[in-house]
C-alpha cells in the first residue's frame, strides 16, 4: 500500500534514491545537504538500500568515484552544495564529456565570500556550461519524484548525460511536509536496471574517457550538445509516463500557472515559485491578469515553451537568485535570448532577489508585479532593467 510520510526535502531525496536502487553512492557532507547523505548512509547500514556507500575525503573525490563506478555501467548518485559543487567543477566536465549518467542532488546555497550557508542559485548557475542537465524543484514531493525521473533521463541511451537536481537550501532541504512514497514495485517497473553497451567490459573492450585531437573534438562537443537538445523530448515523455504510473505530472521543462490570458508574467526557479503563485491568486481576485512561469529545466533550456507561453504578455519579470556581476541575472540572459530568437518584443525586467538566504516576501512579489504593470503601460525600456529587490544600502541612483 502507498504510504505518506512527513519528511524534509533532504529526506525526500534520500527516499527517492533508495527507491531508484543505485549501485554506488559517493558523497561528502556539506550544509544544507548533510541530512540527505546521512540518511543514505543509514539506509545502507540498516540494509534497506543495497548499495556501495563510499565515504570520500572531498567532493572532487566523490564525483571522481561516481565517474569510475559509472564507467562500469553502475547506477551512481552523489550530492553536494555550494563550495562543494565548485570543488567538483573539474569533474563536472569529465562526467558530462564522458557521458556518464550520474545523478546529483545540489542543495542550492550561496558562494563565498562573504561566506554564507544560506540559499541562492549562484552555485548551480555558475556551472550552467558544465554540460549537465539542470532541473530545479519546488517542494519535497517533486524532489523525490525527480530523483527517479532524473535517473530515467540521464540513462536514456540517446541522452547519456549527468543530471543535477537542484533544491533550495533550507527552504526545501530543511522544511518538513507531507510526501507520498511511491511503491518499490512501481518504481522498479518505471526505472528498470541500467543496461548500457557503453561501459568497461572485459568481453567487449572499449576506449572510454579518451583524449581528442583538433580533428575530432568539435564532433564530440556537437554530439554532446545534440544529446542535451534531444533530452527536451525525453523529459516530456518521462513526465507523461511518470504521470501515468504515479498520477503526478510536473509539466515537463516548464510549469505555467495562470499564464493563458496573463498580461504580466513572472518567471522564476525553484521554491520562490510557490510564493509567486499565492500572490498571483491574490492579484487575480483584485482583477489583475497575472501569471507565473516556473522554469524547471535550465539545461536544456525551454526556449520554445517560454516564447509560446509569454507571447501575449505585455511585460515579463524574471526573478534571479543570482547575479552575473557586471551584467545581469543569468536566468534573465537566457530568457531574453529565447525571446529574441522567438522574435517577440515584450519588455522584460530583471529582479535580483533572495541572495544569501534573503527572504522573498509576498509583499516584494506584489511590488514586482506593480513594476511590471508600470512597464507594460509606458513601454519604458530606458530605465534600469536590472533591479535588486529589498536593497538595504543606499545606491548611486
Amino acid at each position, binding site marked *: 500500500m502507498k504510504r*505518506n510520510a*512527513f519528511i524534509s526535502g533532504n529526506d525526500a531525496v534520500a527516499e527517492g534514491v533508495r527507491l531508484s536502487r543505485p549501485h554506488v553512492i559517493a558523497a561528502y557532507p556539506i*550544509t*544544507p545537504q548533510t541530512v540527505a547523505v546521512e540518511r543514505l548512509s543509514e539506509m545502507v547500514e540498516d540494509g534497506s538500500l543495497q548499495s556501495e556507500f563510499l565515504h570520500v575525503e572531498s567532493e572532487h573525490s566523490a564525483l571522481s568515484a561516481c565517474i569510475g563506478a559509472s564507467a562500469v555501467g553502475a547506477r551512481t548518485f552523489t550530492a553536494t552544495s555550494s563550495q562543494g559543487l565548485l570543488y567538483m567543477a573539474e569533474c563536472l566536465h569529465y562526467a558530462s564529456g564522458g557521458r556518464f549518467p550520474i545523478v546529483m542532488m545540489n542543495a542550492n546555497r550561496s558562494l563565498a565570500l562573504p561566506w554564507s*550557508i*544560506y*540559499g541562492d542559485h549562484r552555485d548551480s548557475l555558475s556551472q550552467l556550461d558544465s554540460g549537465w542537465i539542470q532541473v530545479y524543484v519546488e517542494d519535497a514531493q517533486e524532489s523525490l519524484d525527480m530523483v527517479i525521473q532524473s535517473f530515467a533521463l540521464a540513462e536514456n541511451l540517446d541522452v547519456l548525460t549527468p543530471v543535477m537536481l537542484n533544491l*533550495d537550501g*533550507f*527552504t*526545501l532541504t*530543511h*522544511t*518538513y*511536509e*507531507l510526501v507520498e512514497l511511491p511503491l518499490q514495485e512501481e518504481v522498479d517497473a518505471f526505472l528498470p536496471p541500467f543496461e548500457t553497451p557503453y561501459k568497461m567490459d572485459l568481453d567487449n573492450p572499449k576506449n572510454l574517457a579518451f583524449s581528442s585531437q583538433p580533428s575530432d573534438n568539435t564532433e564530440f562537443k556537437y554530439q554532446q550538445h545534440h544529446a542535451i537538445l534531444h533530452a527536451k523530448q525525453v523529459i516530456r515523455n518521462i513526465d507523461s509516463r511518470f504521470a501515468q504510473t504515479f498520477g503526478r505530472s510536473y509539466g515537463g521543462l516548464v510549469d505555467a500557472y495562470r499564464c493563458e490570458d496573463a498580461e504580466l508574467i513572472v518567471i522564476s526557479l525553484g*521554491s*520562490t*515559485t*510557490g*510564493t509567486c*503563485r*499565492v500572490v498571483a491568486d491574490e492579484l487575480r481576485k483584485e482583477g489583475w491578469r497575472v501569471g507565473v512561469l516556473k522554469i524547471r529545466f535550465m539545461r536544456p533550456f525551454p526556449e520554445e515553451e517560454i516564447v509560446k507561453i509569454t507571447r501575449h504578455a505585455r511585460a515579463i519579470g524574471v526573478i534571479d537568485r543570482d547575479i552575473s556581476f557586471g551584467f545581469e541575472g543569468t536566468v534573465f540572459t537566457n530568457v531574453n535570448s529565447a525571446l529574441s530568437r522567438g522574435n517577440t518584443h515584450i519588455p522584460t525586467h530583471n529582479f535580483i532577489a533572495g541572495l544569501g*538566504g534573503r*527572504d*522573498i*516576501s*509576498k509583499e516584494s512579489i506584489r511590488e514586482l508585479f506593480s513594476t511590471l504593470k508600470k512597464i507594460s503601460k509606458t513601454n519604458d525600456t530606458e530605465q534600469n532593467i536590472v533591479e535588486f529587490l529589498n536593497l538595504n544600502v543606499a545606491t548611486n541612483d
Partner: protein
Amino acid sequence: MITVRFHGRGGQGAFTAAKLLGEAVAMYGGKQALAFPSFGPERRGAPVLAFVKIDDTKIYDRSEVHTCDYVVVLDETLFNPAFFNDLSPHGRVILNTGNKELYAAYNSSQLFTVDASRIALEILGRPITNTAMLAALSGISDIVSVEALILALENYMNGAILEKNKQIIPAVIAALLT
C-alpha cells in the same frame, strides 16, 4: 492559514515540537502543513525558532513567517513582551512557567501559562517540554486533537518513553483547567 512559532533553546526540542505538530495535523488531521526551523547553524543552548504553517489546502507560500496565531515558548528565559506584537488579532502566547503571577500584568486572553517543566520533570524525570507544550496548544485551541498528537508521538518514540509522553498530555490538560 494557521501559523505557530516555537521558541526554545537548542536541545530542548522546539523543532521536534514543530515536526510533531506538523505530522499530527498532516498525517492524522486531514490538513496540509509545513514545519521548519529557523534556518542556519544549530547550537546546543542557543535560542532557536521553529515554525509550522497549517492549512486546509496545499501550502505554496515558502516565505518567512512574521505574524503568528500561536507563539509557544518552551523556555521562560526567552519570553519577550515583543512577542505580543507578532500575534494575529486573536493570537495567543503559550508560556512555560512555574511563576504565572510574574505575568499577571499581561492580557490574559493573549497569554496562557502552563508549568510544563514541572509536569515533564514529574513524569519524564527530565525537563523536556515539547510534548507538554503541544498538549497545552491542543488544550487551548482546535488546531490539533489529542488523538492526532498521540499518533504522531507513536512515530517518534516507543516503549516507556512513549508511555510517559502519553501520560503528559492529560496531566497538562488538567493543569490548564486549574
